[in-house]
């Protein structure tokens, strides 16, 4: 009976609609019964953020901004002649040794076999850095002589911005190529703009070229701040997370303070920026979560999650 009535004009409730396409049903093609949108899911992957956790993560961004500010402060000091390059150089070497000691102290247990090897390769790398930098300093110091100062400043700003944007905040230890290279390029540009020794420049030409020691110091500090410091930071984050938080705060304070000693207005701006990034942005993030309205359903593109572990055996 049901089959006979199914071939009639009006679909009766005897035949139920099934969501299949290979069978000829008495319903029109675009018919859906009351189970419409049953498979709709809203805000499926929504994460519940906790304010202080987000603030802690944002601290890394603030820390990096203040690192850049510190570096610029050092350059300003050297440019205005308030700090002699030799002092800075020895300070930098001391900091490097201290940092290396801390790095090795915080090394995870069970790595004692590679210690000797890594120490030797570290020494090799350090000597390569120092020799190359020292060797290229005379070339680097007159590199941007013919370029206009404004252009140099603009290039520096662009490169530092690129560094901040491309920095691998999730995992700072193997440094990202673009961020590190951009920072080094900016430091070379800045290093070539340092004023020279009063003894070396004869005073005849209007642009005085920096001495090799200035350039060398600048590059060593750039290496410290941009290449080696993130490695230490990563170790800290892995081993002692609460120390990590303190360190970030300390760096921020140093940055603001350093800038403030030369340019108070800048310090205020920097403090405001840091505050926004650390405190305001997480708040915004959490507040705006409630406005989220994502819908997922069977109409989404299929995501292939590759699980290759079944190839292991």
């Amino acid at each position, binding site marked *: 009976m049901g089959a006979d009535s199914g071939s009639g004009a009006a679909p009766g409730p005897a035949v139920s609609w099934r969501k299949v396409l290979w069978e000829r049903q008495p319903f029109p093609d675009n018919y859906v019964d009351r189970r419409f949108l049953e498979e709709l899911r809203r805000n499926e992957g929504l994460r519940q953020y906790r304010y202080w956790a987000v603030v802690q993560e944002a601290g890394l961004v603030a820390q990096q901004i203040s690192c850049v500010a510190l570096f610029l402060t050092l350059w300003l000091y050297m440019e205005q002649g308030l700090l002699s390059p030799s002092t800075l150089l020895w300070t930098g070497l001391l900091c490097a040794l201290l940092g290396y000691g801390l790095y090795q102290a915080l090394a995870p247990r069970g790595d004692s076999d590679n210690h000797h090897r890594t120490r030797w390769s570290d020494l090799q790398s350090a000597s390569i850095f120092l020799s190359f930098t020292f060797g290229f300093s005379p070339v680097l110091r007159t590199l941007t002589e013919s370029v206009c100062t404004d252009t140099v400043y603009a290039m520096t700003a662009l490169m530092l911005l690129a560094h901040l944007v491309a920095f691998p905040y999730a995992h700072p230890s193997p440094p990202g190529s673009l961020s590190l*290279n951009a920072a080094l390029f900016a430091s070379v540009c800045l290093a070539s703009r340092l004023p020279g020794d009063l003894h070396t420049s004869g005073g005849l030409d209007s642009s005085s070229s920096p001495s090799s020691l200035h350039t060398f110091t600048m590059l060593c500090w750039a290496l410290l701040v941009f290449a080696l410091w993130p490695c230490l930071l990563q170790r800290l984050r892995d081993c002692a997370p609460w120390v990590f938080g303190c360190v970030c705060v300390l760096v921020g304070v140093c940055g603001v303070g350093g800038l403030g000693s030369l340019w108070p207005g800048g310090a205020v701006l920097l403090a405001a920026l840091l505050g926004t990034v650390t405190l305001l942005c997480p708040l915004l993030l959490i507040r705006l979560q409630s406005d989220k309205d994502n819908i997922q359903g069977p109409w989404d593109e299929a995501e292939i999650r590759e699980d290759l572990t079944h190839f292991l055996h």
Partner: protein
Amino acid sequence: MVLKIFFPQCCNKADSGLLVGRWIPGQNSAVVLAVIHYPFIPGQVKQYIHQSGVDLTVLGSWSMPKEGQEGMESFLRDLSTIFPQGQWLQLSREMGKIGFRYGKLIQQEKELKEDVEGEEGGGEKDKVIFIHYEQRKVMLSQLHPIDNGVPDPQTESQLPQVFGTVCQSEPLFFLDKYDDGPVKMTHWQSEGREGSIIVELMKQASTPVCLLTTWMLTLWTSLCSSRILNMRPMRFISSKLSTCVQLSYRTEHLQTVCSPTRATAHNHFMRKANIFVSFFVDVSLGLLLVSWMYRENRIGKLANTLVPAADYVAKELEELLQWLMGAPAGLKMNRALDQVLGRFFLYHIHLWISYIHLMSPFVEMILWYVGLSACLGLTFALSLLSDITALLTFHIYCFYVYGARLYCMTVYGLSSLWRLFRGKKWNVLRQRVDSCSYDLDQLFIGTLLFTILLFLLPTTALYYLVFTLLRLVVVMFQGVLHLSVDFINSFPLFAMGLRLFRSYRLAEGVKFRVLCEEPGTPLHLMMDINPLKVSSVVQTYRTPTYSCYPKDSWLALCKKLFLGELIYPWRHKTTKID
């Protein structure tokens, strides 16, 4: 189908007789080659046709009755039984009338068809067209495009077959009316054979001259390929000097011309003739040049101006370098690199000038003896000039190479380090750019080098630009010289002469002119030879040379210049295989 009869003009006024010629298979046409007059013995005629070595048949009969001679019709008809043919043509002409009368006899069907005056239509009447041609011109002319292979008689079109027929029947035309042969014929040479004493003398003299020249050339080539002259440095130098290249090329030419075998194909003959004429013209121009130069000691004056000219070039270069070392065109260069490069090049110029001054006492003598080699031809003089220019501007070439190499290294290093800057690497296996995680020290050193190269790029680029421009000027000048040498070598003078003065010898086709069109008589056309176009003459008969052509297209050249690759814009295509 229309029957076409090709009738030679010389036979228009011939006495009555037999028509001999050839039927062209498949085309329903006949080419009449000659008329054999009465009286004749049919057996002798058949024997003569067999022995002549030419593809001949008896086509039919020709009657042009003189006054008083009548009644040949039936006699002529009976002749058809003596010479059995498939088709028998009966052509007749009356004195004073232009048109011919035509009759055809088909043996197998024993049917007589006559195209009577005034009668048209009614049944199948064969239409016939008489095409008159000038026998001498058609015999001497060559139809283009030349078919190099053996033509298939079935598929070949009509016109080449007609021309071929007339050309092959040359032996037929040796008998003239003063000869005491078995048959008396009328053809274009029947009034007497053409000949000229000069041509005959030259033909006699050419064989021993050719043998002598070939012997001398073999001596020369064996000398050239001896062990001493074939060492690597000598071979390298001789491949670079255009005089040596031109010398080897001329030797090859002479070998072609002086080979004792006669040229059989038309192409071969034309090539030999072209080479000979161009060689002759070349040598005469060279001798003119030599006689002009050595008169009034002009060569001495030329030698005296060479060293001051070199000095002047060097001085100009020094000034240019001083300008570059300052602030050229307001561009700000990297001072240190600028000074280094400028001083390096200045020292080079100083060395070069010292060398030139060392050579200056000997320049006149060298030039005097070397200038004598212009006797061998104008092309040699031009090649010598090109070589002297190359030698005098050798320092510019060196500077160009230094600048180009430096620039190329800079660009290459920059592109590779730019990839490192972005964290990418060139995958040689897959020929694409892949991401790569670099070590810390690689990143550091890479960035330092990138910065240095980037800021030094304007300086290197400017030096490269300046020296490339200088080098291009020299190359252009040498190119002009080489092009003119090439032109003299390859231009087909003989073929051009033929085209201008005997245009019927190089035929592209034919054109027809209506001679007589009267209703009731067959159509008479005059076939005139259409000469080959001048551009086609040059294209067909151009001697292939080591043609000096630009190796790269403009786009490829620009790309090479941009990347700093060394350019050698003119490449010689050698015809020999090393």
